[in-house]
């Protein structure tokens, strides 16, 4: 056990050295590191609890996606039947389905054939399963269309993908450093923005759907009349103005003149006459043409700019707007105008996002945590080292050396994995220091026992290693199982603890099996001891 070939010793030392060196990029300034090749740039990322920042988990409103999909199915059904000139009645949503009754029994087969075109085979991995987007059933002349569950799931998945892109654009507008935006699970988006003092604005930007439409105001009824039961014309709806507009009610046509998707640019600015903040925008060519046509037809009548079902403003069209650009004035503050233009530039979310979890740590607390974590690490490590040297003398120094290399290797592996270091993660490292010396304690105590059993120094050391290593492996695997489970269930700081603790166990076992042996083996070869000094 004690004899090791020079090759093996060299390999062990080299491995330990290389792993330790992976930690090096953490100790050079970022400006220097940026000029290194990318493989050498891997480094530990400080968790949000240490550097301060916001962790926000958003959920895509799957029900809204479902509703929207059903509305689209209803509209498609109407269009298909109209185009095919098939007389129908009672087209409506019922539960999760769309129902329609075909007037002439002879038309049912024809209608079915046409409606089947609405059911597309689903793409992606589902393509091979033959799954389709719509289930169609008939009962006499009643046809029932239902979006299949895979189709809804697929649509939610798309909505999450689109949301991620849009959220990315919005967050980048805030000018923050290294925001992290990623999908989480089937219908969630995780946003992590480091170093943010106040997340209120970020949350407002994330929580707004920003669906902007240009529509006409319905002047056939007054808002008061529309409030009566059945008072709202079927092609219109009653919407409230924004708070800045006094929250007045408007009757707005459902038909959209120009959708917000046709905007190509939006910028905050000031109205040249009144001096109040505005948002000026430009349409793409399609939008410009439609807007020009609509304003030409409706001179003298009010139209409405509707954002997320709230009327921002409802100006009267004084003259046709044919240039493809315009401005929105809605009694904004400068910041509101700024945020609205960010939202319009980034585009609308396909479905509303709800904040389901938020964890924000201010930079002050983060700095405190770093300082306290470091202090605890130094004191804890120093105490352990002093105790080990007091107990085992020279062998205590060996143990401390092994633990120091062990910790350096933990940092190396963390860097290699680009892992996140959190405050509980630091606690995990300190705990590893406490537990890592256990492997040395096991070996040394075993050596003591073997000496007492009457073995010679070298034979006792050899037997001590042989017998202790099996125990070290057994005892560390149980702890590792706990760390692995924790990694699996944990998020954020807790996962940071599982990472350092788990890596710590692996490096501890590696150190016990290799480095500690090399150190002792070299010492034995050098000193040829007659007695073991422990």
């Amino acid at each position, binding site marked *: 056990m004690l004899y090791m070939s020079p090759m093996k010793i060299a390999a062990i030392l080299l491995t330990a050295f290389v792993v330790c060196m992976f930690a090096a990029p953490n100790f050079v300034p970022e400006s220097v590191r940026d000029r290194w090749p990318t493989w050498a740039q891997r480094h530990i990322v400080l968790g949000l609890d240490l550097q301060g920042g916001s962790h926000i988990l958003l959920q895509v409103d799957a029900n809204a996606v479902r509703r929207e999909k059903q509305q689209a199915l209803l509209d498609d059904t109407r269009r298909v039947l109209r185009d095919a000139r098939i007389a129908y009645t009672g087209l409506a949503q019922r539960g999760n389905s769309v129902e329609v009754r075909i007037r002439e029994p002879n038309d049912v087969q024809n209608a079915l054939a046409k409606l089947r075109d609405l059911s597309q085979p689903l793409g992606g991995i589902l393509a091979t399963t033959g799954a389709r987007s719509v289930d169609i059933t008939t009962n006499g002349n009643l046809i029932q269309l239902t979006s299949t569950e895979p189709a809804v799931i697929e649509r939610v998945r798309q909505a999450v993908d689109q949301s991620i892109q849009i959220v990315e654009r919005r967050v980048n507008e805030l000018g923050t450093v290294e925001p992290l935006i990623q999908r989480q699970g089937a219908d969630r988006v995780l946003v992590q923005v480091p170093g943010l003092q106040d997340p209120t604005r970020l949350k407002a930007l994330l929580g707004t759907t920003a669906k902007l439409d240009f529509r006409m105001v319905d002047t056939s009824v007054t808002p008061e009349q529309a409030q009566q039961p059945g008072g709202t014309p079927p092609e219109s709806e009653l919407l409230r103005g924004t708070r800045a507009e006094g929250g007045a009610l408007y009757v707005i046509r459902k038909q959209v003149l120009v959708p917000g998707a046709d905007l190509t640019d939006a910028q905050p600015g000031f109205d040249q006459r009144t001096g109040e903040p505005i948002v000026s925008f430009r349409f793409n060519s399609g939008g410009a043409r439609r807007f020009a046509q609509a304003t030409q037809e409706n001179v003298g009548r009010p139209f409405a700019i509707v954002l997320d079902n709230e009327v921002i403003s409802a100006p009267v069209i004084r003259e046709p707007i044919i240039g493809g650009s315009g401005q929105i004035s809605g009694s904004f503050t400068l910041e509101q105008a700024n945020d609205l233009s960010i939202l319009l530039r980034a585009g609308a979310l396909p479905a509303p996002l709800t904040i389901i979890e938020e964890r924000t740590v201010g930079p002050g607390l983060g700095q405190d945590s770093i300082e306290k974590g470091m202090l*605890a690490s130094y004191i804890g490590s120093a105490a352990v080292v002093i105790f080990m040297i007091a107990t085992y003398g020279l062998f205590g120094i060996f143990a401390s050396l092994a633990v120091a290399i062990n910790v350096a290797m933990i940092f190396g592996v963390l860097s290699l994995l680009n892992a996140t270091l959190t405050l509980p993660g630091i606690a995990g490292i*300190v*705990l590893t220091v406490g537990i890592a010396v256990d492997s040395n*304690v096991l070996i040394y105590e075993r050596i003591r026992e073997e000496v007492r059993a009457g073995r010679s120094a070298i034979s006792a050391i050899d037997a001590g290693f042989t017998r202790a290593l099996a*125990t070290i492996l057994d005892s560390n695997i149980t702890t590792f199982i706990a760390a692995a489970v924790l990694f*699996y269930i944990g998020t954020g700081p807790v996962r940071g603890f599982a990472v350092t603790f788990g890596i710590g166990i692996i490096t501890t076992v590696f150190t016990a099996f290799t480095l500690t042996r090399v150190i002792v083996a070299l010492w034995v070869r050098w000193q040829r001891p007659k007695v073991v000094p422990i």
Partner: protein
Amino acid sequence: MRLLRLVPDDTRFDFIRFRRISFPISAVLSVFAVVLYFTHGLNYGIDFVGGTLIEVQEKDGRAADLAKMRATLGALELGEFQLQEFGGPSNVLIRIAQQPGGDDAQQVAVQKARAALGEELEYRRVEVVGPRVSTELLAYGALGMVLAITGILIYLWFRFEWQFALGATIANLHDIVLTIGFMSIMQIDFDLTSIAALLTILGYSLNDTVVIYDRIRELLRRYKKMPIDELLNLACNSTLSRSVITHVTVTLALLALLIFGGQAIHGFTAVMTFGVVLVGSYTSILIAAPLLLYLGVGQNRGSDDDVEDKPSRP
């Protein structure tokens, strides 16, 4: 240089007979912990019940006026809320119970609270957990405990005989029960970090138990005729020095974290210190080892003579 010897060579403590005291003590404490859990309850943190947690600090080290803050927040009618000094007179921890009305309602509550408290304070931490996430986290936490215990049980079963696996599991469930009792008495926030602390205690305590079990297994192979209680005692005594020294090093590390690690991980380290320092080693020696007596370990040993210096492992 004279080296420190915490445990003299060749101790002959009768740990196994001590079970007549340790078993009743543990039984009483475990029952007490369970009763506490059901009467006093756990102080569930927002991870598991949802709600809002805000840590604020008065600027320039001024002492916070808790009564005034309480009045300000009370006027908002946000339901149940608590204020607590946190690590110093200028730091205050505010907890607001989960608001009815889903995830959006929680955000509204935070905005209201923040607007009422004003921007004169430093907002050191704001955590909002909605009902959906808290339900999931609770399920994950419970799942984690079950997974960890099952995984470790299976590993021990493979590595040792089933009696050892069962003994270790009973002993370590006992640790968890006592620690939960401790959290109930101290009303330490029970959240995701508590689960981390519990799993660490589980891992550490098992680590300790496995070291002793390993030795018991070794002795069982070596001494075929030694009475089992004597053998268990020998195993505990011959590993005693290691148990004590490792215990000291882990305690030193944990105390450093507890004293200097700051408020943010105070609950986490307090729970771990209790579990590891007070319970872990006690369990391994005085519960896990004697338990094997009742589980019928070593009854099927051959009747060969004792083999003094056979290698412990093939």
